[in-house]
């Protein structure tokens, strides 16, 4: 039970939490780094957006906690939390401008304090501005909470779209510019760095109106679609599939070189994620050494094709089956010893295996065969006839084909006898065994399939980059792929795609992210597990299971005992 004081004044507690987050984000330099990108020209930058988002969120939650106690209390809670945050930020500014903290906290720079005080010359005015802004935030967030549901959702979606469009301006600008009739939109939306005020307003109005309209009419439209005769419905489905296929085919030409490069990186992660999804998502075996198979695929292709080592000179297509074969063999080889382990132990053992592979590849001992720290270069590009997959726009098709192949196989496997066996093992190993599932074969198949897919992506990666280095295969890659799967939703195939775009695509597009990428990953993982453990695009059964686990009888009893005590 929480102490009564906390329940009476949720504003103060939440305000302190929010204030600490704001101060922390400022001190680690994320605010300053993000401030270089303007969301709305001369009005608000991405760094300020971040602070604004947290402040509004905290004040909103504070208001929501007290909503049952009337409007006065709600307003009080929202305002208190905002003011507590303002006080903490002010303290930071005062401390930072009087004492030089940069010897220890390298990001406590004068520029940061300029940003926090809205660029005001005098400290007093700046602090006044902080309090004014936070008072407005408190009022705004409370008002937002008091609005009716549909309006609130429309306002939030509208504001979020401004932020997203502003953030992705580098991507949207060239796309709009590529097509003559809509190129004029660019002048309206992005006259300089960031959105124009009128552009932002019109985005807000359009999106908010659309959300509002969909909330009212969406149910009816969906009802009308499901009321269509079966023939029409199939036509609609085929039509949308064809449209999606067409979009996928022409995408790299619309997007241009840089965005195609981003797309190929995302594609590689989708490929890796789909493979690991079989091991982690379907069979429930947490594998943190997945990058080892990626490395094995890459190195196999490199050794077999590169003239630098000169053992063999196959072409990409001749080397590919060997890469996949070695990947599968390695999967079985790793799978056998760890068959009996579960959960955490499996994670650690596979992590150790991945590190062993990397250390071996890096060592001088195996240098004559694997190139040591210098890696292997001059890997020829894949080619069909005279068509070479050289530029990102061409490699894209190779990766797309890979994704389709892997996606199709894992989609078919999921609903097959093997797939159901995997899921049974994931749910409960002992029960699965009692039901006659051969645990050894089932787990080994999962490892082998996942490893094969990973080796396939490794092979594509090697031919895309043209060289392989041991440093490309560190444990971070494994962790990134795990994050992609988990953020997307464990076991869900569309989730992998969503996760790859969110975790790999976005940071590539937002250069400011580069340094804070893993910070954001870490925060996202923790927040995801605390708030939405089923992921962004969950698989139906898994979602149900997680929700049930929370409400399981035994746990409720145990918690009752525990909470009674404390």
């Amino acid at each position, binding site marked *: 039970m929480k102490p009564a004081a906390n329940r009476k004044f949720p504003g103060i507690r939440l305000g302190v939490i929010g204030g600490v987050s704001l101060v922390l984000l400022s001190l680690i330099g994320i605010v300053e780094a993000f401030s270089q990108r303007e969301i709305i020209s001369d009005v608000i930058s991405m760094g300020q957006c971040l602070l604004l988002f947290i402040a509004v969120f905290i004040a909103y939650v504070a208001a929501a906690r007290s909503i049952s106690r009337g409007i006065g209390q709600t307003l009080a809670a929202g305002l208190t939390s905002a003011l507590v945050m303002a006080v903490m930020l002010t303290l930071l500014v005062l401390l930072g401008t009087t004492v030089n903290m940069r010897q220890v906290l390298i990001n406590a720079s004068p520029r940061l304090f300029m940003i926090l005080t809205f660029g005001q010359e005098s400290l007093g005015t700046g602090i006044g501005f902080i309090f004014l802004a936070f008072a407005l935030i408190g009022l705004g967030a409370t008002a937002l909470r008091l609005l009716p549901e549909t309006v609130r959702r429309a306002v939030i979606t509208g504001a979020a779209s401004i932020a997203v469009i502003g953030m992705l301006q580098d991507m949207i600008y060239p796309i709009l510019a590529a097509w003559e009739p809509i190129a004029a939109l660019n002048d309206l939306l992005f006259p300089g760095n960031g959105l124009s005020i009128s552009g932002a307003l019109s985005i807000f109005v359009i999106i908010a109106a659309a959300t509002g309209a969909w909330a009212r009419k969406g149910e009816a439209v969906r009802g009308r679609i499901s009321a269509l005769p079966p023939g029409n419905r199939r036509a609609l489905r085929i039509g949308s599939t064809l449209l999606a296929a067409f979009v996928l085919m022409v995408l790299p030409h619309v997007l241009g070189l840089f965005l195609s490069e981003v797309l190929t990186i995302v594609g590689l992660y989708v490929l890796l994620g789909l493979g690991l999804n079989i091991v982690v998502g379907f069979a429930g075996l947490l594998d943190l050494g997945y990058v080892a198979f990626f490395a094995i695929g890459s190195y196999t292709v490199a050794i077999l094709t590169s003239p630098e080592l000169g053992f063999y000179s196959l072409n990409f297509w001749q080397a590919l089956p060997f890469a996949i074969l070695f990947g599968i063999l390695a999967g079985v080889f790793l799978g056998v010893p760890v068959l009996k382990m*579960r959960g*955490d132990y499996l994670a650690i053992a596979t992590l*150790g295996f991945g590190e062993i592979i990397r250390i071996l590849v890096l*060592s*001088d001992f195996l240098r004559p065969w694997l190139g040591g720290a210098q890696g292997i270069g001059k890997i020829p590009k894949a080619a069909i006839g005279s068509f070479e997959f050289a530029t990102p726009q061409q490699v894209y098709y190779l990766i797309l084909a890979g994704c389709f192949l892997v996606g199709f196989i894992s989609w078919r496997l999921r609903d097959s006898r093997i797939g159901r066996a995997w899921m049974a093992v994931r749910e409960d190993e002992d029960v699965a065994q009692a039901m006659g599932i051969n645990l*050894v074969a089932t787990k080994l198949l999962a490892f082998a399939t996942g490893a094969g897919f990973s080796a396939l992506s490794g092979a594509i990666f090697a031919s895309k980059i043209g060289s392989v280095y041991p440093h490309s295969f560190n444990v971070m890659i494994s962790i990134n792929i795990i994050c992609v799967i988990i953020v997307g939703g464990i076991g869900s195939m569309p989730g992998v795609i969503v996760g790859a775009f969110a975790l790999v695509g976005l940071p590539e597009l937002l250069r400011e992210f580069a340094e804070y990428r893993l910070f954001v990953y*870490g925060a996202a993982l*923790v927040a995801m597990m605390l708030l939405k453990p089923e992921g962004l695009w969950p698989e139906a059964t898994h979602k149900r299971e997680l929700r049930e686990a929370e409400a399981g009888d035994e746990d409720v009893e145990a918690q009752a*005992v525990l909470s009674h005590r404390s």
Partner: protein
Amino acid sequence: MLQRIRERLTPTDIVMWLIGGVLLVMIFWGSVATLVKGVYSARQWIDFLIFGLAQGSIYALIAMGYTMVYGVLRMINFAHSEVFMSGPYTAYYFAAYFYRSGLLESHPVISMVLVFIISMATSTLIAYLLELIAYRPLRGAPRLVPLITAIGASFFLQYMFRGLYGSGFQAYPVVKALEGHMSIGPIRILKYHLLVIVAAALLMVALYQFTQRTRLGKALRSVSEDKEASALMGINVDRMISMTFMIGGAAAGAAGVLYAIMFKQVHFFMGFIPGLKAFTAAVLGGIGNIPGAMLGGIFLGLVESIGPSLFLDGLGIVAPYQLKDAIAFTMLVLILIFRPTGILGERLAVKKA
């Protein structure tokens, strides 16, 4: 008899024993070859031994945190390596200040004690907050969930400290009094190695006595035995879990300063490898078992410092020292395969694994 053995033998067992056998033969052959060739003198072996002992006692101290948390919550606290990093990294700024102001020269003992206290306090605080924010809301969640949270928290902390303090290596100031060798009988030992070994040993003894003798220690052990029953006996389970994290954090903070004294630098990524090694040590000794973690840590430290020269030199492998991490991880995998309960482990049945 033979018939029964043959029936129980599965192909996977055969493969596993084959792998293990090959590795054992390699280790044996390599050791004999090295010793026969006589590449290293007795003095060098003793140096390896002492270095391994010092390194191993640091691992043992970090392993404490892993093993105690595992004992209570049955989860691997992946973020423990960041708890380990946070202490010495924060204390560095104080150590550097003491160095500049001359306190480190004039009063080396006082200033080192202060550095220790600051480091332990920081690590304890971080461990406490970690449990409160990231792990407490997840009691009773499926097992994968806290594990992933721990991985996320580990990155969060790592890059938080990188953002706060910067990404460069910071050279820990050297204490003059700790430089040079000293002799114990016929053995010459580096002074700071001696400090590391003695300090770690004292801390471990204190910690062990604390868990065995005090009321609080008894409550901690009882919670790791059975949470519900402890709650019924009037123990505040949540507070005991916090306490476990904090004690582990304090041990890690102390280990961190010892690590910084030994390797003379701190960095935001310094926790990762020692953390992994310490976890290996905890598993080696039998996870959930405190004396086991101590034994496992020292054993791992010794294998790591002696192993490359002893096992690999004789096999004619170039630059064997590069492979010391591979040896540690191979040991981990082997232990997990052949004796998942560890050297001293007795409590880790299948249901808890």
